[in-house]
C-alpha cells in the first residue's frame, strides 16, 4: 500500500479507511515539551484524515485553559493552535471531569469547545479506539 498523501486529496470526502485515534493529553503545558509535541502529532493525524479524538486529563487540562501567556516564560505560545484543530476536522475534544474539578476549573475556563466526560466514560471511549497515543 502506498503512503497516503493528504496534499493530493483536496476534496472533503470522508476517508473511508480512517482509523480511530485517541490522543491523551495529560501533562502541564510548559513544564515539559510533551504537550506541544503531542499537539503536533494530533495535527498531522488530522491532516491524514484520521478519525481523531482528543482527551485532556490530569494536568493536561491546563493546556487548553484560557489566558495563557507562554511568552512570559520565553516558551512558544502553542495554546491558540488548539483552536485550529477544528480546521483539521478534529472536533471531538473531551475533558475528564475529575481532573477538571480537582483543579478548581469549570467548562468556562477552556479556550476551545469541549465536552465534559467522567473517567469511566473516557474509559469506555478508549475501548472503542483503534489507536491510543500519548506523549
Amino acid at each position, binding site marked *: *500500500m502506498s*503512503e*497516503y498523501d493528504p496534499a493530493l486529496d483536496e476534496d472533503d470526502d470522508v476517508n473511508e*479507511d480512517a*482509523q480511530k*485515534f485517541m490522543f491523551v493529553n495529560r501533562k502541564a503545558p510548559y513544564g515539559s*515539551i*510533551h504537550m506541544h*509535541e503531542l499537539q*503536533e*502529532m494530533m495535527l*498531522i*493525524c488530522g491532516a*491524514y484524515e*484520521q478519525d481523531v479524538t482528543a482527551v485532556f486529563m490530569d494536568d493536561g487540562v491546563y493546556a487548553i485553559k484560557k489566558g495563557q501567556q507562554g511568552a512570559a516564560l520565553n516558551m512558544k505560545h502553542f495554546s491558540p493552535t488548539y483552536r485550529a484543530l477544528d480546521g483539521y476536522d478534529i472536533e471531538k475534544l473531551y475533558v475528564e471531569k475529575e481532573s477538571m474539578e480537582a483543579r478548581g476549573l469549570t467548562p468556562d475556563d477552556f479556550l476551545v469547545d469541549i465536552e465534559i466526560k467522567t473517567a469511566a466514560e473516557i474509559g469506555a471511549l478508549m475501548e472503542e479506539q*483503534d*489507536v*491510543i*497515543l*500519548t*506523549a
Partner: protein
Amino acid sequence: MKFTVIVNEGPFIHQASDSALHFVKAAIETGHEVEQVFFYCDGVKNANKLSAPQSDDRNLVKLWGAVNTEHGTDLVVCVAAALRRGITDVNVAEGFRISGLGQVMQACCDSDRIVTFGD
C-alpha cells in the same frame, strides 16, 4: 501480531528506551512482527551516534542499531523532534532513518497494536 512501538524518552535518563528495546526483542523472538519503532520527543536522542556511554554501561544507540541490522526493523526518527534536539543526517546513528510523523500514522494504521514507552 504486528506491533508499532513508540519511544518518547531519551536513553540513560529514563527506563523507557531500555523497556522498549527489551519489548521489541522479545516480540521478535516469540514470532511477532515489529512494523516500526518510532522515536519521538526526547526519544530521538536514542539515534545520536555521538552518544558515548562509559564502557561498562550498555550503549542503547548501538543496541537499537543492532536490532535494525539483525532483524531489519525499521527505526524511524521524527524529523521535527530530531532537528529541535540537534539530531540530523550528520549524527544520526547507523540503522536509523529520519522521517516525518506521517510515517508513524501509517504504521499505526498498518499494525495490530501500538505500544508507547514514555513518562
